[in-house]
C-alpha cells in the first residue's frame, strides 16, 4: 500500500515517457492523465489514513525487503503519526499544483508532467523511508526534478535560482551522507553488522562528542531545507523564480522535509546533542521568525513576500520541535500541515494574479475587490489562515507551539509572539494594497474572475483550512501516540545517560509532561 503511493506517480511518469508528443498535439491527454494519477495517489494516501490505527505509536503499513544485503540496506518503509499526514499533504497538494499550472505551462507539457510526477514520487518516498540509505536516495533524487521545474519553466532568473537551490541543498545533504555512513559504521562496531535501519539506529549508544558532530551534519542539511536563518537565502530565489506549481510544492512540501528531518532523525538519533544544541537552534528559529517577518513586510513582490513569510512560519515549527514536549511537537507538526495548505494556497493565488497580469508587483495591483470579488474572498480566507486567525488552521499550530515553548523557555515565546503580530501586519498590508482602494491601473479593470479550473484548485484548500481550524482533533489524534513515543524516546535516552554519568538532575528540560488540554474550539 505504501509502496503503491510512491510507485504510482513514478509509473505515471514512466508511462508518459513513452507517449509521443513531439508537436504538442496530445497535451490535453497528458494533462488529464497526470491529474488522474495524482488524484489516484491522493486516494491511496487517504486509504492509508483510513486504515491507520491512531492508538498505536508503531510504524504501520510497514514493508520491508532486502535491497543491498552486504551493507544491511533494506527497502524499508512505514508511516507513523508524524509522517502519515505529511504523506497525505503531499498527495493533496500535487493535483492542486497541477491545476494551478494547467494553462500557464504551454510548452513541453509532457516533460513538465513527468517531472511533477517524479517529484511527487520522491517526496512521498522521503516521508515513508525508514532506512537511512533509502531516505537519502529519495532526498537527493527529489532535487533533480525540482531543479528542472525551476530551471525550465521558471521566470527570468530561473537558471540562477535553480542552480542555487540545487547546490545549497546538496552541500548540506552530502555532509549528512557522511554522518549516515558514520552511523552505519558505528552500528557495525557495536553489533558486528552494518545497518541503516532507523529503528535499530535509534537504540545505538553514541558518545556525546560524536553525537554533536553527527547532529550538526544532519541538522545543517535539514536547516538548509527548512530554511532556518541564516541558511535561507536560496529560498526567496527559488520560490520567486519557480513556476506556480513549483512554488506550491516547494512551500507546501519541500520545506517540511527539513522540519520532518529534525523530528525524525536529528533529535531522536542524537538526543544528547539535541539537548545541547536545542537552545541555539531555537534562537536561530526566533531570529528567523522576526527577520523573515520584517523582510516580508518590505517586499514589493508578492511571491517574495510569501517566500519570506515561510521563513517566519517555519521558524515557529523549529521552535516547537526544540521545545520537545507534547504541545510543542504536536504544534510543530500541525503547523507544518497548516503552512503547507495556506502557503501553498497563497502561491497558488498569487500565481493566478500573475498569470493574468504577468507581474507580481504589489504596486501594479489595487482595487481588485471590485473586479474579481470571488478571488478576493478566497484570498482573504487563505490570508487570514496564514496570519493565524482563530477558527482557521494557522492558529492551532502557532498556539500549541507557543504553549509548548512557554513550558520550555518563556523567553523565546516573547519574541516569537512578536512574529505573530508582524505576520498580521505584512499579510494584511499586502492584502489591502492589492484588493482595496481604487483600481489604479487600467489593465486591472477587466481581469476575469476565477474560472472553474481555479475553483477546483482553490476550494479544497479553503475547505481544509477551515476544517483544520475547527476540528483540530481530527488531525491531532493520529499523531498523539507517535509524538509521545518520540518524546519519551528522546528523553529516555537523555535520562539514561544522565544516570550513567551520575548527574543529579538535568536543569534544562522539565519532566515529561502529562497530556495537555486541547484548545477548545
Amino acid at each position, binding site marked *: 500500500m505504501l509502496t503503491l503511493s510512491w510507485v504510482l506517480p513514478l509509473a505515471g511518469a514512466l508511462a508518459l515517457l513513452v507517449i509521443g508528443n513531439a508537436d504538442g498535439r496530445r497535451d490535453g491527454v497528458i494533462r488529464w492523465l497526470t491529474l488522474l494519477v495524482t488524484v489516484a495517489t491522493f486516494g491511496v494516501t487517504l486509504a492509508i489514513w483510513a486504515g491507520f490505527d491512531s492508538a498505536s505509536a508503531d510504524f504501520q503499513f510497514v514493508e520491508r525487503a532486502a535491497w*543491498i544485503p552486504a551493507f544491511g540496506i533494506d527497502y524499508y518503509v512505514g508511516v507513523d503519526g508524524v509522517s502519515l499526514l505529511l504523506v497525505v499533504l503531499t498527495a493533496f497538494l500535487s493535483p492542486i499544483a497541477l491545476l494551478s499550472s494547467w494553462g500557464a505551462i504551454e510548452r513541453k507539457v509532457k516533460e513538465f508532467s513527468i517531472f511533477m510526477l517524479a517529484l511527487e514520487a520522491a517526496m512521498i518516498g522521503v516521508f515513508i523511508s525508514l532506512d537511512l540509505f533509502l531516505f537519502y*536516495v529519495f532526498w537527493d533524487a527529489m532535487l*533533480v526534478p525540482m531543479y528542472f521545474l525551476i530551471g525550465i519553466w521558471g521566470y527570468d532568473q530561473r*537558471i540562477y535560482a535553480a542552480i542555487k537551490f540545487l547546490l545549497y541543498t*546538496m552541500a548540506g545533504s*552530502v*555532509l549528512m551522507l557522511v554522518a549516515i555512513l*558514520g552511523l552505519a559504521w558505528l552500528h*557495525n562496531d557495536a553489533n558486528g553488522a552494518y545497518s541503516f535501519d532507523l529503528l535499530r539506529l535509534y537504540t545505538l549508544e553514541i558518545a556525546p562528542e560524536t553525537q554533536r558532530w553527527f547532529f550538526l551534519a544532519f541538522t545543517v542539511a535539514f536547516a538548509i531545507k527548512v530554511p532556518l536563518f541564516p541558511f535561507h537565502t536560496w529560498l526567496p530565489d527559488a520560490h520567486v523564480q519557480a513556476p506556480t506549481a513549483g512554488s506550491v510544492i516547494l512551500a507546501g512540501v519541500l520545506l517540511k522535509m527539513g522540519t520532518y528531518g529534525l523530528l525524525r532523525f536529528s533529535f531522536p538519533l542524537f538526543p544528547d546533542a539535541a539537548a545541547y544544541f536545542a537552545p541555539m537552534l531555537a534562537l536561530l528559529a526566533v531570529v528567523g521568525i522576526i527577520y523573515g517577518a520584517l523582510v516580508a513586510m518590505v517586499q514589493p513582490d508578492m511571491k517574495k513576500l510569501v517566500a519570506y513569510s515561510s521563513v517566519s512560519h517555519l521558524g515557529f515549527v523549529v521552535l516547537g520541535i526544540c521545545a520537545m514536549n507534547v504541545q510543542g511537537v504536536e504544534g510543530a507538526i500541525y503547523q507544518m500541515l497548516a503552512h503547507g495548505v495556506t502557503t501553498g494556497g497563497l502561491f497558488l493565488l498569487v500565481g493566478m494574479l500573475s498569470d493574468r497580469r504577468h507581474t507580481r508587483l504589489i504596486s501594479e495591483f489595487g482595487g481588485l475587490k471590485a473586479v474579481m470579488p470571488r478571488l478576493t474572498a478566497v484570498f482573504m480566507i487563505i490570508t487570514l489562515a496564514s496570519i493565524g486567525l482563530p477558527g482557521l488552521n494557522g492558529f492551532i499550530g502557532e498556539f500549541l507551539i507557543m504553549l509548548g515553548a512557554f513550558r520550555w523557555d518563556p523567553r523565546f515565546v516573547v519574541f516569537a509572539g512578536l512574529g505573530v503580530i508582524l505576520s498580521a501586519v505584512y499579510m494584511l498590508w499586502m492584502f489591502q494594497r492589492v484588493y482595496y482602494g481604487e483600481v489604479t491601473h487600467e489593465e486591472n479593470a477587466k481581469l476575469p474572475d476565477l474560472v472553474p479550473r481555479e475553483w477546483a484548485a482553490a476550494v479544497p484548500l479553503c475547505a481544509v483550512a477551515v476544517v483544520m481550524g475547527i476540528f483540530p482533533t481530527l488531525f491531532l489524534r493520529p499523531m498523539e501516540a507517535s509524538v509521545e513515543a518520540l518524546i519519551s524516546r528522546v528523553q529516555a535516552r537523555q535520562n539514561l545517560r544522565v544516570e550513567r554519568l551520575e548527574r543529579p538532575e538535568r536543569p534544562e528540560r522539565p519532566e515529561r509532561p502529562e497530556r495537555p488540554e486541547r484548545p477548545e474550539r
Partner: protein
Amino acid sequence: MTDFSAIVPMLCVTLAALAVMGAEACRAKGEDLPLGGLGIVGLAGAAAGAVLLWNRNAASFGVIVADNFGLFVTLVLVAVGVLTIMFSAPVVRRDGLPAGDYYALILFSIAGMIMMACANDLLVVFIALEILSIAVYVLTGIRRDDPRATEAAFKYFLLGAFSSAFFLYGIAFTYGLSGSTRLDRIGAYLAAQALSDNPLILVGLGFLLVGFAFKISAVPFHMWTPDAYEGAPAIVTGFMSTGVKTAAFAAFARVFLSAFEPFSGEWAPMVWLLAVATMILGTVVGVAQSNLKRMLAYSSIAHGGYLLVGLIAANDVGKAAILFYLAAYAITNLAAFGVIALLGARDQANDELRDYAGLWHTRPALAALMTVCLLSLGGLPPTAGFIGKWYVFSAAVSAGYYGLAVIGVLTSVISVFFYLRVVVMMYMTDRPAPVAAAPASGLGMAALVASIVAILALGVLPTPVLNLAVASIATIF
C-alpha cells in the same frame, strides 16, 4: 605443461587484433569489412573466458594470475571495449579514420589493459603498461590532419615515456632490495623484514607511486590529461579516460595492497595528499572550462581522486569499492563521451559547451541520455555514480578517514555545478542548437541506451555487481 588458461582472455583479444590487421591487409580497395565486429567477437571470447575462469584462481607462467579481482576488471574492460567499438563504428566512417589501424590499436590496448589487471609481477605490469600506452598514444593522434590531435599525442607520449621511466626506476629499486619482481615474493619479503627505516624502499615506493599517479592522472601528475583529452577524437578520449584508468587502477591497487601492504603506514599519507589535491583541483579547475571534453578531462581527474579514497581506506570495503566505482565510472564516462562523439561532425568537433545550447529541442533523446550520464558522474541517485560514491566514502568512513570523506563529498558538490552547466545549456537556453550532425547511427544509439540502462540498473539494483565486487576481493590480498 604450463597452464595457459589464465591468459585466455588477453589471448582472445590479441588474436582478434591480429585478425583485424590481417583482414585489413587483404581488404580490396573500397571494400567495407566489418572489422569492428571481429573485435567484438574477440571481446566476447575474452568475456566468456573470464566467466569460465571465475573462482578458479588460475595462474600462468607464475606472473599472470586470473583471480577474481583481475577477472572482474577484465569484464569491465571488455564492456569498455565493446561500447567503444559500437560508438566508433559511425565515427570511423564519418571521420574517414583508417578502420584497420583503429580497431587493431583499440584491441591491442585492451589486451594490454587486461594483462595489466592480471599481472602478478612488476615487470609484467610494466610490459602491459607499455603495450596499452603505445597503442593509446597512436590512437590519440589518429586524426593526422588535425594539429591539435598531433600535439596531444606528442605531449601524451613524452610525459607517458617520462612516467614509464619513473616506474621502471621504482621496479629497479624494489628488485634491488627484495631480490624479486614477483608481487607475492616482494610482499613476503617486506613483511618479514623490518625495512621501514630503510630509505631505499621508500624511494622505490615513491617512484612506483609517481609512475601510477601519471597513468591515473593524479594531481600533480595530471598535466598531460586536459590537453590529451581535448586533442584526441572524442571516442578515443572516452576510451582512454575509462580503459586506461581502469587498468592502471587495478594494477595500482594490486601492487600497493598486496606487495606494499606492509608499508601502508608509509604510503597512505602520501596517497592521502594526492587524493585530496586531485579531488580539489579536478573539480575546481573543471568549473572554469568551456570545452566539454576538457571539462570531462578534469572531471575524470577528480574521479581518480575518489578512487584513491578507496585505495587509502585499504580495507575490504575500500577494495570492493574501487572495483564497483571503476565499473560505474567506466560505463558512465564512456557513454558521456559517446554522446559527444555522436554529436560531432567530420570538420567540426562540436565539443564546446555552447554547442549544446538548446540541444533538448533538436535532439531530445540524446539530451536526456547525456543528462543521465552527467547526473551519474555527479553522483546523484538513482544512478550508478551515486552508489559508487557512496561505496567509496563508506570505505573512507569505515577506516576512520572522516576528513577525507568530507572533502570528497564537498568536492563532488562542486563537480555537480559544472555538470549542471551542460544541463543548463541543453535544457534552459532557448537558442537552437548549432549541432546539426546527421541523425545518430543505430549502433551508436544502441550502445548509448545499453549504457544508460546499465547506469540506472547499477543505481537501483546494485546488489549483484556489488556482491561480485565483494567476491572478487575475497581471493587475493
